[in-house]
């Protein structure tokens, strides 16, 4: 066959494969994306932005997150395109349609990109490979990073035009390249910036190499470099023109973004991202951000490495590929941080470098795969090992890789990255009724679905899911991604969440939608009350006395910039589309890669062996590992492993699996275990804690028995808890079993228990009308009285202590605020934390403590006056604090006393978190400090529980400050009542207590 015929067949196969790839992508990704979308990291954020543009196309101020932010903080094209599609289809469907469109553009891009390197058949193979490439599957179906995919899809399409422009110097190619690059710039700024380095520079280098006549390409490296520089100078006009126009376009198209970056730079504390981890220390991060996206690249690394370094024209690509690969290793080595600099390293998510490395590798992988299926490598295997061997090798590689891809599609199910899908309709209904939208809300335990709720509602939340745009100091000063998943950010996350929950008034935060009971103790002890459980199981918590959202002045953006933001980006897509049509009709040339050298299908033996066998080994190994983890892992091979695996099952509430770690006996059945568990299990630690760390130490081992000391550390919403216990194990049939500890239950006298509750219902007198009935439905603000208020200074610590009484005939919710006025006319507000009963029955009173700033700060600012405000609101919930505490106090060393509490549960429900609010009083009755003490285990109805707590008395060393405290109740200035002596406290070494327990049963409406 002559050369022309070869080209015809090559083009035929190439296009056939391209069409196959496009069709395959449509039926695979097109179908699956709708189902994987809810489990992705980012899809809902982009949907939220799309919803913004759908509602307010020319208005960049988005008030629904973070008390307001500018959407010019992210290039808008992807969101605007989805917004446009959403005018016809529902938002989620619009996203899916856009995703399919981008995948198709990407496949075409890869096909055209590969043609710069090799023949069209190889490009066709590359197109097919793109459909099933793990990095692309993961980016789409696990991460949902649509802007990244859009950016790379149009960038790849731009590169061949740029190459042609440098080689042939025709203006139409420059125009086409710039039009596609414009779309990249408007879609994803990071791809645009780094694309210049990792994609455009190698293309220019390759074009310059190809522009050298073949006989003038020196073998010597230095001479070659000089030749390239000379070639560059010969084409400096083209390069300069491209660079200038590119910079002008990049700046002008998304000028508001650059303006925002310059005028409002990101100054927040870096948020940890698993892609920056040391993958040896955190293998799970390595799996998600390095192994999965690069699995195929590792499998073909010898072939890629060989081909990419074989020709001088590929040198630029080799540098890009290995650099991306290196940056993709995150914090495994110090090199990425050194090369990128600490700032860029801490802002960027490094998984995108792995993604780009995988994209650069596609042509080189495709070349080897093509050779393995129908080329030199195939001939080698068939000639040396027979057709069957080659067939088996191909089949096993293909089959195991496809299983691997299926695993990625379902990664969200195997390793849940998000909570289960939540039906948002009940929450939308809740926000829409009774003017609930006039306050802010917060979601807890929603994952990225919080963005989906926001996208469907006009209500505002204090949280958000685009942390680059947040400017609230409470969020930017802590390494917390979102408030809603605060528990995953450790102590910093919970501190930040606590800040928002206690300072709710500051943010007009009134409602919390909780999908995770982990936060219940924190909510309850921060003064939140449960309002209603919605049909979807979400519990709505409410805080009383929170004022409605006040209008916030949006950040000013020039009206002209607003218009350009709404017009330029979407225009870039339209221009690219029309120019493509124009180009295809007018300029499209056949065989325009005539300057590309013929594809050399030769591979040396070591590359053939390694690149043929590595995929089989890797993917089969992966498959076996999955099977092993599921079926064959020996969880009870030694005493320590048995204990650790037992706790792991307990942590995930897999009680049946945990039970199998106990010594099998006829008397200790699963039923007995669950029964004992239900009787003595419950409370802060078993029900509201997450296992943070565990260590098992073998104390002794004799033949077939062992003793293990277990130390567990648990994270709760109220802080960390530690537990130590000793477990006895025995060995039976090569497995270690735990011996169940003897269980002695307290048995109450009564068989039936009765208790009279007085419950309230705030029914109001509202006329059924969507207009507020102004006067008649208002319930008056209940009366309250400050029984005492004291400014205490204990060294560096300052706090206001006191006692407040509900003087009314209805239960109340009280919010306290301390306002300190300084001599420089500044005011700082402080709110109580958990040392206060926020809800009080009629004529009930509570101690309180409001922590203030450090003495040093107060001394420097100089206090002018101190004001204490109480706002009251009628409450129908939360006023039952449960249990009958009996206590005695023992003096320990120094001024430390031990409070021994015996709590009797006389109620008809379990007290889930028994607790007491303790106050230190002096002989006159002045309160010096207040502390909340909680016990880890629950107490069942009719039973008792004992616990001890220590408190350091401070009245001997602390000072009662003489600042007069002006008190206000519901805005009215009031007098503080005279302090009364407390005989009970005096009899107990100055300690007075109140019960302060959490009851999870909703019927009691705590």
């Amino acid at each position: 066959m002559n050369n022309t015929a070869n080209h015809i067949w090559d083009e035929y196969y190439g296009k056939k494969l391209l069409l196959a790839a496009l069709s395959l992508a449509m039926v695979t990704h097109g179908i699956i994306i709708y189902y994987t979308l809810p489990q992705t990291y980012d899809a809902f954020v982009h949907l939220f932005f799309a919803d913004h543009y759908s509602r307010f196309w020319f208005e960049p101020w988005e008030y629904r997150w973070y008390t307001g932010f500018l959407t010019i903080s992210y290039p808008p094209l992807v969101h605007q395109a989805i917004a446009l599609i959403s005018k016809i289809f529902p938002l989620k469907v619009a996203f899916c349609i856009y995703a399919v469109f981008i995948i198709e553009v990407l496949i075409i891009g890869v096909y055209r990109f590969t043609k710069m390197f090799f023949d069209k058949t190889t490009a066709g193979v590359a197109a097919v490979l793109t459909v099933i490439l793990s990095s692309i599957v993961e980016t789409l179906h696990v991460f949902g990073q649509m802007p990244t995919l859009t950016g790379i899809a149009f960038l790849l399409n731009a590169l061949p035009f740029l190459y042609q422009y440098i080689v042939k110097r025709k203006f139409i190619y420059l125009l086409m390249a710039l039009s596609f690059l414009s779309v990249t710039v408007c879609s994803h700024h990071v791809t645009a910036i780094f694309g210049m380095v990792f994609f455009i520079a190698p293309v220019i280098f390759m074009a310059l190499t190809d522009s050298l006549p073949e006989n003038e390409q020196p073998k010597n490296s230095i001479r070659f470099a000089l030749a390239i520089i000379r070639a560059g100078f010969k084409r400096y006009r083209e390069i300069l023109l491209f660079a200038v126009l590119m910079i002008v376009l990049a700046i002008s198209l998304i000028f508001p973004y650059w303006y925002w970056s310059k005028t409002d730079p990101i100054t927040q504390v870096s948020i940890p991202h698993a892609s920056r981890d040391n993958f040896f220390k955190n293998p799970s991060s390595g799996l998600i951000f390095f192994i999965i996206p690069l699995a195929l690249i590792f499998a073909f690394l010898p072939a890629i490495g060989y081909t990419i370094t074989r020709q001088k024209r590929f040198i630029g690509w080799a540098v890009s590929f290995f650099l991306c690969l290196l940056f993709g290793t995150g914090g495994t080595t110090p090199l990425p941080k050194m090369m990128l600099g600490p700032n860029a390293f801490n802002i960027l998510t490094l998984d995108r470098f792995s993604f780009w490395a995988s994209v650069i590798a596609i042509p080189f992988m495709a070349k080897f795969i093509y050779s393995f299926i129908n080329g030199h490598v195939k001939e080698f295997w068939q000639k040396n090992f027979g057709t069957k061997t080659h067939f088996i090798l191909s089949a096993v590689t293909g089959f195991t890789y496809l299983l691997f891809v299926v695993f990625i599609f379902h990664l969200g199910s195997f390793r849940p990255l998000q909570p289960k899908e939540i039906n948002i309709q009940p929450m939308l209904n809740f926000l829409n009724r009774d003017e609930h939208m006039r306050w802010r809300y917060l979601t807890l335990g929603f994952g990225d679905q919080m963005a989906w709720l926001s996208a469907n509602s006009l209500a505002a939340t204090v949280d958000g899911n685009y942390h680059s745009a947040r400017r609230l100091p409470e969020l930017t000063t802590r390494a917390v991604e979102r408030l809603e998943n605060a528990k995953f950010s450790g102590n910093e996350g919970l501190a930040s969440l606590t800040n928002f929950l206690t300072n709710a008034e500051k943010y007009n935060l009134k409602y919390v939608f909780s999908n995770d009971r982990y936060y219940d103790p924190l909510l309850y002890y921060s003064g939140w009350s449960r309002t209603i459980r919605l049909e979807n199981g979400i519990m709505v918590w409410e805080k009383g006395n929170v004022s409605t959202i006040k209008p916030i002045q949006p950040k000013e953006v020039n009206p002209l910039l607003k218009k350009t933001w709404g017009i330029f980006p979407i225009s870039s897509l339209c221009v690219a589309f029309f120019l493509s049509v124009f180009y295809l009709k007018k300029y499209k040339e056949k065989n325009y890669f005539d300057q590309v050298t013929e594809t050399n299908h030769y591979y040396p033996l070591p590359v053939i062996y390694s690149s043929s066998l590595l995929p089989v080994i890797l993917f089969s190994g992966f498959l076996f590992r999955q099977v092993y983890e599921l079926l064959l892992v020996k969880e009870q091979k030694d005493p320590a492993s048995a204990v650790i695996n037992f706790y792991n099952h307990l942590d995930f509430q897999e009680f049946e699996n945990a039970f199998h770690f106990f010594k099998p006996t006829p008397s200790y059945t699963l039923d007995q275990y669950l029964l004992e568990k239900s009787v003595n299990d419950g409370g802060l630690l078993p029900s509201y804690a997450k296992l943070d760390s565990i260590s098992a130490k073998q104390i002794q081992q004799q033949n077939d028995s062992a003793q293990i000391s277990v130390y567990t550390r648990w994270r709760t919403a109220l802080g960390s808890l530690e537990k130590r216990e000793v477990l006895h194990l025995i060995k039976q049939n090569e497995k270690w079993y735990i011996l169940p500890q003897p269980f002695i239950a307290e048995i109450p006298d009564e068989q039936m228990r009765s208790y009279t509750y007085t419950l309230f219902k705030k029914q109001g007198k509202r006329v059924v009308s969507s207009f507020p009935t102004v006067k008649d439905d208002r319930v008056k603000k209940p009366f309250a009285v400050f029984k005492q208020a004291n400014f205490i200074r204990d060294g560096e610590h300052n706090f206001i202590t006191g006692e407040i009484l509900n003087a009314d005939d209805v239960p109340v919710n009280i919010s306290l605020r301390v306002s300190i006025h300084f001599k420089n006319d500044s005011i700082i507000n402080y709110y109580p934390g958990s040392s206060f009963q926020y809800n009080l029955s009629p004529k009930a009173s509570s101690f309180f403590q409001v922590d203030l700033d450090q003495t040093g700060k107060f001394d420097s600012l100089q206090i002018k006056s101190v004001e204490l405000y109480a706002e009251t609101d009628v409450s129908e919930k939360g006023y039952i604090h449960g249990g009958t505490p009996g206590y005695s106090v023992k003096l320990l060393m120094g001024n430390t006393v031990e409070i021994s509490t015996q709590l009797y549960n006389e109620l008809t429900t379990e007290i889930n978190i028994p607790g007491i609010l303790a106050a230190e009083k002096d002989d006159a009755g002045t309160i010096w400090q207040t502390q909340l003490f909680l016990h880890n285990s629950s107490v069942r109805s009719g039973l008792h529980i004992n616990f001890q707590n220590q408190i350091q008395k401070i009245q001997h060393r602390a000072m009662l400050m003489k600042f007069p405290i002006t008190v206000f109740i519901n805005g009215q200035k009031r007098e503080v009542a005279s302090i009364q002596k407390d005989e009970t406290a005096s009899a107990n070494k100055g300690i007075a207590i109140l019960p302060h327990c959490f009851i999870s049963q909703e019927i009691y409406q705590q």
Partner: protein
Amino acid sequence: MKKIIIHIVLIILLASCYSKPVEKPVWLNKKAIVSFPADTFLFKSETKNWKAILLSFSQPVPLQINYNTEGFVLFAKNKAGITEGAAQLILSNDNHFFYYELNLNNHSYGTITDKDYRSPKTVNPDSGLHQQRIVHTIDEWRNLVYTEKPFQYFFEEEITLAPVAKNYRAQNNKPITAFYVQPGSAFSINISAVFDKQENMFIVTAGPVKDKYNNVVSNGTLVAFLYNNRQNYFRMEAALLNGFATVKIPAEKNTTYNLTARINETASQTIQLQ
């Protein structure tokens, strides 16, 4: 020639754009105060196709038009009354609008409604029993009507309520006008205890708890039963229901408890449980 044709066409076009000016209709029976809906509006005009809207300060009322030889007559159909006060009559014909200032008065009051407002709606004898009362009357269309006293739209008085805890109504058959006298704080607490052998418990009852005006103290009021033995000080809480709060305290062998019931600063006598 071409130029002449173009000029002719332009002149024709200009002529076709001309429309006859609409003259403002003359209100023949103009009055400073119009009685609604009895009075009609008589206008003189040569033009037809009028639309008429009467704008009171709170609502627009479309008027019906009957044309006659001299002009037209406007009248309200199916409307018995309106919010009184300054109003505007708007006559429109295509893009021409004419405005006429007037004052509206209803021809009749329709159904008269009395309004009786009380503030505060809830009073508590602990703080005071004073209440402010404002009375006024409105007609069917929410216009103020003179009260019984001549030339007075409002009647206001300060009253002292009886210290009897109860829900009252300012106007009979109108629950929305209800106001409340709450019971005050506990004045004294009676306490009694019995030992229930069967359950091995002391049943302690506080009550009837009343305020200084002999009202039963409100439901839900927290009663703290404070009792102690030699080792511990206990605090059991219960809510009042109809003036009584009862708790069951488990008895222990050879243990005597001293018990006091407290509501805020009011304490009962101390009793012994043994």
